[in-house]
């Protein structure tokens, strides 16, 4: 599964992250990363084992999963809020 095309909104957000100055991040080129083929992480289906879940192809749900997973690195979360 090669990567799917990205929406313009995402591109716009990238540009905006430069806050009006000259863009400081390398810009994603339509269809390829600087000409290199790669897949987006969210274009995969979750693994058959483990508890990771997201909707294949949906970046937002994948980010939710990633951010949920990041709580594993937050011991305050485990100590005080679980």
């Amino acid at each position, binding site marked *: 599964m090669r990567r799917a095309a990205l929406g313009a909104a995402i591109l716009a957000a990238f540009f905006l992250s430069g806050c009006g100055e000259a863009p400081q991040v390398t810009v994603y080129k339509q269809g390829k990363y600087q000409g290199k*083929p790669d897949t987006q992480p969210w274009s995969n289906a979750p693994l058959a084992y483990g508890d990771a879940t997201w909707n294949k192809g949906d970046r937002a749900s994948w980010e939710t999963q990633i951010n949920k997973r990041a709580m594993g690195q937050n011991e305050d979360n485990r100590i005080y809020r679980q």
Partner: protein
Amino acid sequence: MARMKFLCDAERCIECNGCVTACKNENEVPWGVNRRRVVTINDGVVGAEKSISVACMHCSDAPCMAVCPVDCFYKTADGVVLHDKDLCIGCGYCFYACPFGAPQFPQAGAFGLRGKMDKCTFCAGGPEADRTDAEFKKYGRNRLAEGKLPACAEMCSTKALLGGDGDVIADIYRERVLRRGKGSEVWGWGTAYGPGKAGAQPPAGGKS
């Protein structure tokens, strides 16, 4: 939108090399190639010893990308700096450009599967199809494509090393810094948020 970053808390890092080994294990990096290293300054000097774990920092404006003569690097939509080993010519220019010495080269004569430049991928594999054997052999595991974060950060023994969406890990770190009132100076947050208070109470919902 997720922008992947690492952050290593020098108040916490005990130079246990858990992160280094987690990386070796997860990516089966060969002997002599180290995507991640732990650096200790003032080793053994009373009151001054500090350790920190370093790998590719996935720079926003990555010098390696800028100097690569064959333009083998690319940056993913979530901010990870990756490279294409099929294009890499192993010239080592990126190594000189990188302020962290992240690019690694297997020792001479071993131009095998990963004979070209190798570096931390933020556990995001490479150009090969995700989660395939081919990708794993060339670049290691693609944990991001599994909905997980870097093995090194996830297994850090003291949770000194954080890796993930920059905003989220900054939040984790901020909570910690506010509680202990120390460490913010490293990040200029002392100015941004004022100094924290030692022993400050955990946020609501906390218990003892």
